[in-house]
């Protein structure tokens, strides 16, 4: 019976270590995010072919890509600016929230010790989809890739971008 016992013990120990090692991911993108509005990227980016940076306008200038201001939505959805709203945008005015204050739920989060900046990636010609997946086919945003250091590094290696730790961790 020792023939079984010892290997089993060893296996569990090593396995435990591995699990411990690989399960360091409290920041993984969240799969099951419900948004306050049934907003569909498929309709906007897919069907109507609205370029990503039309709404996420800061991406090329800043760390964050930016969530479109309500003004931008109203630009198309409002008949006249702030006039009657089309049915699809009614939920904005629900009573649980102050008018026009939408609280989107984050899908992609990064830990505090990672300094990701959209700007250089956009300018390096990285397509949004390379990290965020085929957004134009999604109604509700679901992460395709696990955004972890390995994922970043692969791409940086492929593109010969810097692999200096300090660029992202400071």
């Amino acid at each position, binding site marked *: 019976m020792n023939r079984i016992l010892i290997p089993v013990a060893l296996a569990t120990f090593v396995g435990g270590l591995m699990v411990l090692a690989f399960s360091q991911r*409290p920041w993984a993108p969240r799969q099951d995010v419900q948004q306050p509005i049934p907003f569909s990227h498929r309709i906007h980016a897919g069907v109507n072919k609205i370029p990503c940076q039309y709404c996420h306008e800061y991406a090329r200038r800043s760390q964050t890509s*930016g*969530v479109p201001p309500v003004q931008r939505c109203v630009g198309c959805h409002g008949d006249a600016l702030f006039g009657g709203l089309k049915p699809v945008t009614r939920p904005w005015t629900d009573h649980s929230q102050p008018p026009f*204050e939408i*609280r989107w739920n984050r899908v992609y989060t990064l*830990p*505090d010790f990672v300094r990701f*900046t959209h700007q250089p990636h956009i*300018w390096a010609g990285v397509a949004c989809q390379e990290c965020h997946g085929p957004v134009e086919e999604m109604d509700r945003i679901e992460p395709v890739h696990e955004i972890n250091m390995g994922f970043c590094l692969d791409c940086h290696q492929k593109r010969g971008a810097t692999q200096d730790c300090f660029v992202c961790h400071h």
Partner: protein
Amino acid sequence: MSEGLSRRSFLKIASAAGAAAAIPGCEPAGRQIIPYVVPDENMIPGVPSFYATTCTECGAGCGVVARVREGRVIKLEGNPKDPIGQGALCARGQASLQGLYNPDRLAHPFVRGDDGRLRRISWDVATRALIGRLSTAAKAGKDRVAYLARPQGPTLDKIAGLWLSAWNSSKAVFHEPLANSVARQAAQDCFGRGDAPVYHLDQAEALISFGADFIETWESPIELARQYAAFRTPKERRGKLTIGRAAYVGPRMNLTAAKCDDWVGVKPGHEAAIAMSVLYVLVRQGWISPNSGFDIATLKSFVDGYDPDAVSQQTGVPAETIVRLGQMFGQAEGAVALAGTEDKETHVAAYVLNAVTGNLGKTVAFLAGSPPSPLSPQADLDGLIAAMNQKQIEVLVIAGSNPIYAMSPAAKFNDALRQVPFVVWCGLVPDETADKAHLLLPIHHPLEAWRDSAPRAGVSGLGQPVMQPVFESRDLGDVILDSARAAGADSKTVPWQTMADAVNAGFQQLQKQLGDKNKPEDFFAQALRDGGVFADAKAADVKFNPAVFQNKPKPPGAGPDLALAVYPHIFLYDGRGADKPWLQEIPEPVDQIVWDSWAEIHPDTAKALGIAANEMIELQTDQGTVAVSALVSEHVRSGVIAMPLGQGHTSYGRYAKGRGANAFAVLAPGARSAAVKVHATGRKSALVSPLYSEDMMGRNIVEAMSIEDLARGVAPESETVPGPYEMYAPFKYPTHKWGMTIDVNACTGCSACVAACYAENNLAVIGKEGCADGRIMSWMRIERFTPPKEQADKAPLMYITPMLCQQCEHAPCEPVCPVFAAYHTEEGINGQNYNRCVGTRYCENNCPYKVRRFNWYKPEWPAPLHLQLNPDVTVRGAGVMEKCTFCIQRIVSVEIDAKTGDRKLRDSEIVPACAQACPTRAISFGDMNDQQSEMMRRRKDNQLRTYRVFNAEFNTLPAITYLREIYHEKGRA
């Protein structure tokens, strides 16, 4: 700021972002995103926007630029356009952020009930209460309302006056506890004008300061420190490589004295005698400038009785020292004498010294059209107190000043205040005065308010709100204007609706004066961008009034055998800085004490009085008694006890309350010194200092060389590295190799760099106990060593240098790290990955410079202090090692900017926080690969002076090169 965004939701975002930053690396950032309704054009989330404004921490009125991220100010930087600060900002300026975000700030209006307890009320109730009281008072008769404040810019002060007159009163008193008003009185006597001169130390060759500590707190420290650095920079004068020769006459060796060639320790009150005696030497030697137009005879009679021997008998200062000062001053081409004492004689003597040597208008200049002093004469204050005592004042509005704390007990302000039925306190953090007030109004921090400033002729600063108010505060100006309108003031008397209008109006007037042809709004917009309007002012030609010579100062006599000399703390100043944790935690540069106040006693005096170090002693003057612990130190003249102001608060927030003692309590009104008796209590109360030894033990941490050697071209033998002994092929740094050059000679030890580092890099403040355990978190410290006595002739008075991570190419900390948390970047920086660090602390053990800091506990920022955290810098958690990164976040952002705009990096485009803050520009940063960079040129131009700390011992190849301190060899004056 963003109109579309409600303040509430702004705070939500801000706090969300703040919270995310404040949780060290264990939790993702805020889970919700709230977009703008209408985006703000001036602002891109994630990109800082900069707003020019002015600093109000002291009278100097430097311009600052506020770095704003997502609607919160995260850093203050000097405004390069401003002629006074010229882009530098002192520690106190940096720390005014913590005044803005202070967790103890008054969040709402409060009213004091009959039971003495404070009750929270709404602004409407508050204003109604105020106006009700005011109207009753106004009806009761004239001058029943009074306004006691610190000067807060011409416009606000003017509005206050108008408002008072609307309430049928004129009792506006503008008071500064440490105002240098004697200088103005002296100027009045000597030149018949009531303003203080501006100085050009950089154009002088010799300097004597009579108690004017211009590096720490006197007048305009940043500007004067900058000039002094130029004054001390080796340059050709009369065909000879020299540096300016400086002497400081005063009871305590402060930073100014430490940077001079001579510190002449005198008892407080003897400065005048020394000055007169120096004048005596000049007169006797005939070193009187012919075109100064003085009649030698009058001068002779004026200085009669001040021959060095007599003076030296009274003051104990050796006669030859005085003669030496005289020679140095008289023979110099361009000399300047400064006076910073509270007695007028010294100032007069100093003016005479400057005048007779023909330096008026050269090194000392009165400017044409300088603004009138914002301060009220002492008489007004006395009058106010008298009126209060006679129950004539029914409503007293106190704004931004703390008389209960900062007035001599002899003024009896406390009793007077009790006679006032309704005291209104307007301010930020409730202080001792607020405890006595009946109505407490939270007003905007200067960074939230509109304001202007007129520190001197030609400089009109413009301050704008740089962020939404953090608390439910209101602009003092608006409060006053509202109540003035309530008093029925019509649009003629008070033509402005808000403070903003008033300031704007002020600038339109200014435009008219300047005859500027632009559209008013353009003019104002430009002023907003520049942080004010800066025109150069001409020097007025002044006539010396010989009447001064009639009343010559009386000889001082020996003075008390034990004198108390009180001086403003470099950071806490008159106590207003005590509520800011940074200022409490940064060690006072000369004595290196934190979170406390102390009494400096010379070892001999201490021996004579039987006082041990760290012993609680009671200082008793005719005004009162304070208990403070003793610091036995050579930095004070024997027979004198020196004590800093600033501590000893009984209120004023968690950081200030109950630390040290308040020196105002033993001073007569207006005095800064007194005869004192000392009682040793025998109780110990340890002063906390992060420094262990004053002795450098002959190690080359700070190096110096004499100007004589420099002129001769002889470098002192030091760093003798036997060639590059490389065992392995050195690494290549193809893109950049960041490095720093630090001019120790220029460094004044003012610690602005340290404060800037705290602000920029989210350094934790750990409090007195933490410091006592040796766990201070500052990435950069001011090293201060005193040369051993036997070497005193061949050394500066004090070795002072900034010490930070040397970013060694052979970093000893790196190879010992088991997990590559410490490693070398591709750009030659010694990187530290907080998230990889497991906390073996091996790196700090192996660091020869001891500049790595370990997080012993989880750092904490009581809300809303966390709003100040820099979102570009990770907040480190417990168990992680951290250190200086050359402000990598700034490097990276500029590099990204350059890459995306595909351009090359410009030299000195990247400026670390410390270099940016440094008033004397002692620190320069650049690329060691680029031989033409300003940083490298500085090294090459001063080849003889360069040295690298510990490189000879450990071959660490630091990326920081220091330039040696320059001193005059003693006995060669």
